[in-house]
């Protein structure tokens, strides 16, 4: 303890949690008098245990590097990937092949470039897409099961190429990769909070870690210094759960918006890397979804339930019982209109969204939503009006008016395309809606080999790598769905090759 205490001066004056206050030079071996007493030494340290961290761990270990350590700050492994929906874009997947669908990494990249609105990196996207089959095979070989015959066209893609895990969650991937990594000799530790990088000029040589940390209390655990001989891989995901940071980067993100992410997605390691000179890009590109529900945590069932509502149902303000938007318009339009529903004290007046129960009584999207009380079955307009505190007469009038527009297949109020709209009559399935923060397109800029670029000279920093959502400038304005899983898993293959080639020199 005494030895370690003498090094606590590295952290002197540093407000814990406020990484902006760290002074890089203080953590360098050059300016610190005595050399650091390392508590332990490894070849590679990977920070984070989601898709990117676990794939990196397995691939780096398999490439012949002996000592690979994974540090996870939470009590559970898997990060935000463990609660991801398990959709995975794989051009050339076995189902496409059996169905004769022609696809390629280049076609996927084409779709991603369109969604990126000129801000995506074609080279990075290509490098990632080229490893999609490798990543898919890693999953299958690790015990992940994908739904038989299931290959879907998901939002923004021009072709059906997204497969999905049997359990419907990325947790099926992370929990299996965790086991494989462990069985192959990767050292995986939870409750490890990385407080700082230890630098030697432009090179990261180790980490200052709060061991046995108990999230989120930064006074728990004890400080240790861990040396990384061959490099540090940042696989810490995004920062969507960091409200303070999101607000600084994008003032349009309303503080009343919840987030789909796991609690640990707070991005402090990204900030630490920045404090040591890493270049971060596109940080204000924070993806939100208008399909959230305030009545469940995480991504939840809401998006799937609303895939029915947007087409067949209607959305009504609880403030006046009237429709206020085109239910089928894009994310940004819908978010803005939903967020405008406020009580006088500016608190959210969650709008209600509903469709006919009798059209989907056995649909899994309905059954689970009702079971988990994030949606409710309402047998009459009066019952619905009472529950959500709306004037029953106005609500009935709004439904009648909408039904007239449905019959005419024309929406003079908001110009919604009415081809899929249905005549509405109780019983209804009703849920409440409010946008959620979802994904960070921004992060650490890397070269094509996952080396983190330094802001000092725009050259790669030594021994510092990043993969997955922690990186930035890959997707541009919009990340397409099912591509986060791909990015994290593929990154592990790329970074393993880079680390090996960097260590041959």
């Amino acid at each position, binding site marked *: 303890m005494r030895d370690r205490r003498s090094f606590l001066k590295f952290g002197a004056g540093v407000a814990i949690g406020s990484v902006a206050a760290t002074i890089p030079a203080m953590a360098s071996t050059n300016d610190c008098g005595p050399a650091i007493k390392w508590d332990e030494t490894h070849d590679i340290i990977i920070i984070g245990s989601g898709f990117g961290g676990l794939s990196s761990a397995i691939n780096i270990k398999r490439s012949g590097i002996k000592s690979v350590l994974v540090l996870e700050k939470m*009590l*559970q*492994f898997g990060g935000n990937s*463990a*609660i991801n929906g398990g959709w995975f874009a794989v051009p050339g997947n076995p189902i496409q092949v059996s169905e004769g669908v022609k696809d390629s990494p280049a076609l996927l990249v084409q779709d991603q470039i369109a969604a990126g609105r000129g801000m995506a990196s074609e080279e990075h996207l290509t490098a990632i897409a080229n490893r999609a089959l490798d990543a898919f095979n890693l999953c299958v070989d690790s015990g992940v099961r994908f739904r038989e015959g299931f290959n879907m066209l998901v939002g923004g893609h021009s072709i059906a190429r997204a497969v999905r895990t049997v359990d419907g*969650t990325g947790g099926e991937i992370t*929990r299996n990769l965790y*086991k494989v990594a462990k069985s192959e000799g990767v050292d995986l530790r939870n409750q490890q909070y990385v407080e700082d990088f230890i630098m030697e000029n432009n090179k990261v040589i180790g980490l200052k870690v709060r061991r046995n940390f108990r999230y989120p209390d930064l006074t728990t655990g004890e400080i240790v210094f861990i040396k990384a001989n061959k490099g540090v891989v940042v696989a810490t995901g995004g920062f969507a759960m960091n409200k303070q940071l999101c607000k600084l980067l994008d003032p349009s993100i309303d503080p009343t918006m919840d987030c789909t992410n796991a609690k640990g997605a707070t991005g402090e390691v990204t900030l630490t890397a920045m404090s040591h000179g890493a270049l971060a890009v596109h940080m204000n590109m924070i993806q939100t979804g208008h399909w959230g529900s305030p009545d469940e*945590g995480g991504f939840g069932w809401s998006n799937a339930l609303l895939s029915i509502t947007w087409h067949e149902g209607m959305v009504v303000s609880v403030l006046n019982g009237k429709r206020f938007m085109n239910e089928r318009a894009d994310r940004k339009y819908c978010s803005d209109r939903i967020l405008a529903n406020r009580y006088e004290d500016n608190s959210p007046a969650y709008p209600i969204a509903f469709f006919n129960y009798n059209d989907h009584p056995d649909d899994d999207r309905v059954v689970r939503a009702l079971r*988990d009380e994030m949606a409710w079955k309402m047998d009459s307009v009066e019952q619905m009006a009472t529950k959500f505190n709306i004037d029953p007469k106005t609500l009935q009038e709004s439904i009648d008016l909408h039904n007239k527009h449905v019959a005419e297949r024309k929406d003079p109020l908001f110009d919604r395309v009415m081809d899929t709209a249905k005549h509405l009559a109780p019983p209804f399935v009703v849920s409440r809606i409010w946008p959620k923060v979802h994904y960070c397109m921004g992060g650490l800029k890397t070269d094509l080999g996952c080396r983190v670029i330094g802001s000092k000279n725009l050259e790669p920093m030594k021994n510092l790598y990043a993969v997955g959502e922690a990186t930035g400038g890959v997707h541009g304005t919009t990340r397409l769905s099912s591509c986060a899983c791909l990015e994290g898993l593929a990154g592990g293959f790329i970074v393993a090759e880079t680390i090996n080639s960097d260590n041959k020199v």
Partner: protein
Amino acid sequence: MFKSLLALALSLTLCSAISASELIEVKGKTLGRENHQFIYKDKNACKSCHVSGKKSTTDQACVDCHGTIDTIKIDPKNLVNSHANPHASVHYDTAISCIACHAEHEKKAPLCAECHRSWFKEM
């Protein structure tokens, strides 16, 4: 020896429900679980779980006595639905610490409840 004593005591008090033993005052004002009362009789009781200081702990002591998560079965009768089994979670399986869900000194809802709000109660 202490460990085997713990194991014996536990084998007598283990139950299969998703539940925890009652929270009672075990040492002064410190709250703890009724079935752990015997631990608190020891003068080094805190060190049983807090090996490196009071503010940090892992689930090592839990596992030493109760076994790993995959060996502790939950009676399906006590689940709100078949998906709601924290000891066979599709998200984590074995990749999770006991103390992500269980607390010794306070009532706590399991981690799952962060998203699946209607599935679990504090225990």
